[in-house]
């Protein structure tokens, strides 16, 4: 039976200012969803909130994974439950080798009851798996010994996120603008990577401004966010239309949200 990630009437504020104003979204394992919308509409906030970033204040609504109240869990427990966020801006951790980091991450996520200091997955198996996954998404094996994201180019960082995705095999993955700032070769590599990983056991939410990532990973559903709400849901053709014609038509169809969006922009 496939699991569901269910977001209901989610309301979120940062420093008292409402950002998400009642988001509803259901993703099943195996489905690909696209989330589009103009800058500042709340897409990345949604991604961070699902992953559990502490700076957001949940003012209402719920997030559940197969009935488990996700909002009660810290980011570590959410990861172990099978939620993964590919960061738009992956963080640099100086002095921590990629292979050490990944071995800890994999050990924790595959053995959710693992306590700190308990055994890691066997080095030999892990090395082989890491090598295989790296070659699949075209990352030089030399990166295993480098410090995490330290001195990596934009494209290298994004590939590193996909590598983590491929090793952690989450039930639900959110890709936050994984295609932004990449040249077309890098987008192709990342897209193909996601395409290989996607299957009946992984639900994917792709946040993007562009259509390129979606060419390789055709969404069953496309959602449009405006001023902190999902205002429209369609199929792949909606993504295509937004990409070709922009958000003007969406704003016309949803004047109330467009006005709110305007107000926020003016205030800022």
């Amino acid at each position, binding site marked *: 039976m496939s699991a569901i990630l269910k977001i209901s009437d989610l309301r979120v504020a940062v420093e008292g200012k409402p950002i998400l104003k009642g988001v509803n979204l259901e993703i099943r394992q195996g489905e690909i969803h696209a989330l589009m919308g103009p800058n500042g509409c709340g897409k990345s906030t949604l991604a961070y909130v699902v*992953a*559990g*970033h*502490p*700076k957001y204040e949940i003012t209402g609504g719920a997030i559940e994974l197969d009935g488990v109240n996700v909002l009660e869990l*810290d*980011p*570590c427990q*959410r*990861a*172990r439950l099978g939620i*993964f*966020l590919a*960061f738009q801006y*992956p*963080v640099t*951790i*100086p*002095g*921590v080798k990629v292979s*050490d*980091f990944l071995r*800890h*991450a994999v*050990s*924790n*996520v595959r053995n*959710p009851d693992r306590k*700190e*200091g308990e055994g890691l997955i066997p080095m030999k198996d892990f090395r082989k798996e890491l090598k295989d996954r790296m070659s699949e998404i075209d990352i030089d094996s030399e990166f295993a010994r480098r*410090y*995490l994201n330290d001195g990596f180019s934009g494209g290298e960082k994004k590939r590193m996120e996909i590598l*983590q995705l491929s090793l*952690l095999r989450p039930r639900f993955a959110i890709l936050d603008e994984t295609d932004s700032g990449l040249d077309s070769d890098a987008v192709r590599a990342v897209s193909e990577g996601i395409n290989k990983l996607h299957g009946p056991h992984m639900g994917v939410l792709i946040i993007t401004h562009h259509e390129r990532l979606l060419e390789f990973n055709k969404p069953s559903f496309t959602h449009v966010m405006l001023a902190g709400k999902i205002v429209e849901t369609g199929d792949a053709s909606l993504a295509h239309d937004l990409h070709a014609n922009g958000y003007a038509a969406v704003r016309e169809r949803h004047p109330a949200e467009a006005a709110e969006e305007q107000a926020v922009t003016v205030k800022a």
Partner: protein
Amino acid sequence: MDDYQFGFHDPTDKYVFKSRRGLDREIVYQISELKKEPKWMRDFRISSLETFFQKPMPSWGGAVEEIDFQNIFYYMKAAANLEKSWEDVPEDIRKTYDRLGIPEAEKKYLAGVKAQYESEVIYGSLQEDLAKQGVLFTDTDSALRDHPDLFREYFGKIIPPNDNKFAALNSAVWSGGSFIYVPPGVKIEFPLQAYFRINSENMGQFERTLIIVDEGASAHYVEGCTAPTYSSESLHSAVVEIVVKRGGRFRYTTIQNWSNNVYNLVTKRAMAYGDSLMEWVDGNLGSKLTMKYPSIYLMEPGARGETLSIAFANHGQHQDAGAKMVHCAPNTSSRVVSKSISKGGGRASYRGLVKVEKGATNCKSNVVCDALILDSKSRSDTYPYIEAEDDQISLEHEASVSKIGEEQLFYLMSRGMTEAEASAMIVTGFIEPLVKELPMEYAVEMNRLIELQMEGSVG
């Protein structure tokens, strides 16, 4: 601290000798008498004791005024003999070193071992081929007896008793420590290790180490230290004197992990001659208060000095550590890299001096201090001093203080790391540039100790 794993202790009722508490001339005479020392050493001790009494307590650094010198045992001998086989070491003591993993490490990767328990070295070994090449690795008391001329030529010359109050104290009551002589051109591949263990409450351990690395020779010496956890304090006050002659290389690595009731007040100094390289790798994880600034006097052109310092100050700890580089000759160079971490209300201070004597032209010195503060209760300070009497020199000093980043923590936690595990990983990464300089076994040990410090630390 609950997470200090070396806090156990052995019974003391079978000790061969235990001095009464307190410090006076009689105690010093008694120590010298027991050791059957020559008159010059007894005189040296007595005059050092006078110096100790005369010198005021340092008014800077840590809270040394809380030390009650009359409540301390200045000399304890736990075993009758210095043994060459672990089997001959009394059982309690042997078990302690087993728990510390010393005999096992010795089998695997050490060229020689000295184990000091309370005031005396109770076990010593050195690989046979090194002994054949003329390498001396013995306890300092035996060196005074067996190599009197070599001993007297250097002893107390690098750090005279009047250098500071605690050097004077050590000079008065010293016992044990390592004596190393590496003959010209002899290169010792594997580390020589000494392990210092305090067992009794209110114990004072005053080892005295003297190391001479002759021309073109090289060696690496490692010391480790632990003590039981008691409610009242013990004192460790060592003096370490080192000479590295022309073209020699020497590295002295310390992994100090005293329990949190030990005052650790140590004077360490090396003199580096022409084209030699002296390195201190100084890891301070334990103790209540550490005041230690390993120094290198660059005596002749081409001498290089390097100090890598790691300090971890946890709850109830003050690590006042650093380095001193004294450029006495032209064309000498020095480098100091210091990384400190403070956590749980601990305080880490970097205190360093770069001094350039008149005429020491074309000297280079580079000092980098990075501090990582893990919470708002903890504190970090930097006290860099520069005294330059020559202006044709290049001095660089960089310092940074950072707090552990929320974004870094979130990133690691979103990959399944607990908050404690994520913090430990960030800290381990922070000191990695220094830890990777250590031989593998010590790097593993250092990382393990850091992880222990980080465990159970966060909500």
